[in-house]
């Protein structure tokens, strides 16, 4: 109940700070794309709708996950609201988990609305990919859960600016980890050890991206989806656990 109270408060803050207004941009973009689509031939339309739609859901979600995520804890510390929360019978872990869930709910609403609009367009332009597209959106949401956890981890011990920088770095590298590993293997020596460590520690965000399969009508294996889901959830749990360990030792001056 305490965790939910904090989550609800976090969600309320996001809504009242008008985070969901970003949906308007998504809607406007969608309208612009559909106008442009009428200039194209049928086969191209389907491809472009799925490609652009999934990419924008992912980008909008990531922007919110990072920019709201890095402020989740640091804003509470900066404004000293944390003093009255952590001094109540609320463990530091519950506080972090509540903040995390609050943003996840916000993201779920945002992704849910974007996804519904997108699936509507898919139904109109790209027949037969609605199912796989929904799976792709689910995986994008999972990726957002991982990114939010990483943003929260950084914001539990550093400034919003550095947290933002670190999280963007993790996001970029997270999409390149297989390449990174390959690069290290070719370079050898110390570079190899470093890239191998990064490969193991950083999330492999490429797993969550099934856009190509959806666009090219390739099958998405249920077993793979289950594996990736488990991977995402375990990664989130580990990152939040680490954040709690750090946060628990922190002084609030």
């Amino acid at each position, binding site marked *: 109940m305490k965790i939910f*109270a904090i989550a609800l408060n976090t969600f309320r*803050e996001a809504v*009242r700070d008008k985070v969901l207004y970003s949906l308007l941009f998504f809607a406007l973009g969608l309208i612009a794309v559909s106008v442009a689509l009428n200039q194209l031939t049928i086969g191209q339309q389907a491809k472009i709708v799925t490609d652009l739609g999934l990419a924008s859901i992912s980008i909008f979600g990531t922007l919110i996950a990072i920019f709201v995520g890095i402020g989740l804890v640091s804003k509470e510390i900066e404004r000293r609201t944390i*003093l009255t929360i952590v001094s*109540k*019978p*609320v463990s530091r872990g519950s506080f972090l988990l509540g903040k995390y869930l609050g943003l996840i709910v916000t993201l779920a609403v945002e992704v849910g609305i974007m996804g519904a609009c997108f699936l509507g367009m898919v139904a109109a332009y790209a027949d037969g990919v609605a199912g796989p597209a929904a799976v792709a959106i689910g995986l994008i949401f999972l990726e957002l859960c991982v990114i939010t956890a990483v943003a929260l981890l950084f914001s539990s011990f550093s400034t919003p600016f550095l947290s933002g920088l670190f999280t963007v770095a993790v996001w970029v590298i997270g999409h390149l980890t297989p390449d990174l590993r390959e690069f290290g293997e070719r370079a050898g020596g110390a570079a190899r050890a470093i890239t191998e460590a990064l490969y193991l520690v950083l999330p492999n965000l490429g797993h969550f991206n099934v856009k190509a399969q959806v666009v090219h009508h390739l099958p998405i294996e249920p077993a793979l989806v289950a594996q990736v889901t488990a991977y995402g959830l375990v990664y989130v749990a580990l990152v939040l656990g680490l954040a709690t360990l750090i946060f628990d030792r922190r*002084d609030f001056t």
Partner: protein
Amino acid sequence: MSSALSIEHLVKDFRHPMTLRPLRVVDDLSLEIRAGETFGFLGPNGAGKTTTIKLVNGLLRPTAGRIAIFGREARDVAVRARVGYLPEQPWFYDYLRADEFLDFYARLFGIARAERRARVKRLLERVGLAERARDPLRRFSKGMTQRLGVAQALINDPELVILDEPMSGLDPIGRRDVRDIILALKREGRTVFFSSHLIPDVEMICDRVGFLVGGRLRDQADLHERLAARETESEVRVAGISAPVYRQAAALAARTVASGKEFLFEVPADGSVEKLIDLVRADGGRIISITPRRESLEALFLREVRGGKPEEKESP
């Protein structure tokens, strides 16, 4: 009486972020507050009052020493449910309304819905914000925020209330309101621990005071005993007395000041006051005022801050 808060040899060092040189902010502080007591924590700015209060509330980790609240560890979640805390210069979620804000804090204690509603209503009335229940906090003045902060500290019906500079930044009416709330808490039998550098407020409210200077607790004093012990003389102002009675009265006084038809006698506190009053009344004179002169808390405070050097009164 049982102990509400017990601090033993508390030390807190902060490290400079660049040089990592430790800076001692609280130095071997020991303090015992009994249940039901109102304790004033005095000290100049930068003395370590807020740091001590944050340590007590589990917001900082002590470098050394022990803090026990009702005999349990300060950071124990079960103990936190019995404590109310108002930070210094609080700032709250400005996107919430006053009633939503208090409801949120009530939820943190796991209070059930119906009870939450009743408490929020009662507390908003208690701090004089009932009319503003549905206003967003961003429209609240500093004084209103402070009062809401007091309400937040009382949401769990705490046995120990810790207030960090509850009266700073408030206008005289706001100060009086907060003082009245503290006095009411005292009547209800709660333990109140509050810091201040506003001496008149402390003098009126507290049972005991502690002086914190440079991170060290200089003196813990039973306030009334200390002040009463130093009650040396009384000033009696009278009017409408005859010359012979004036001479008799002047014989009792250490010092006499005449101003028109009024006279002021400084009389030692040894029964002379009563004799003087009888004289004046027998003569048909009028007693204008009797003021016991005692060493003020302010003088006590300044002496502690200056490290025992007696010095003339000066505004802090």
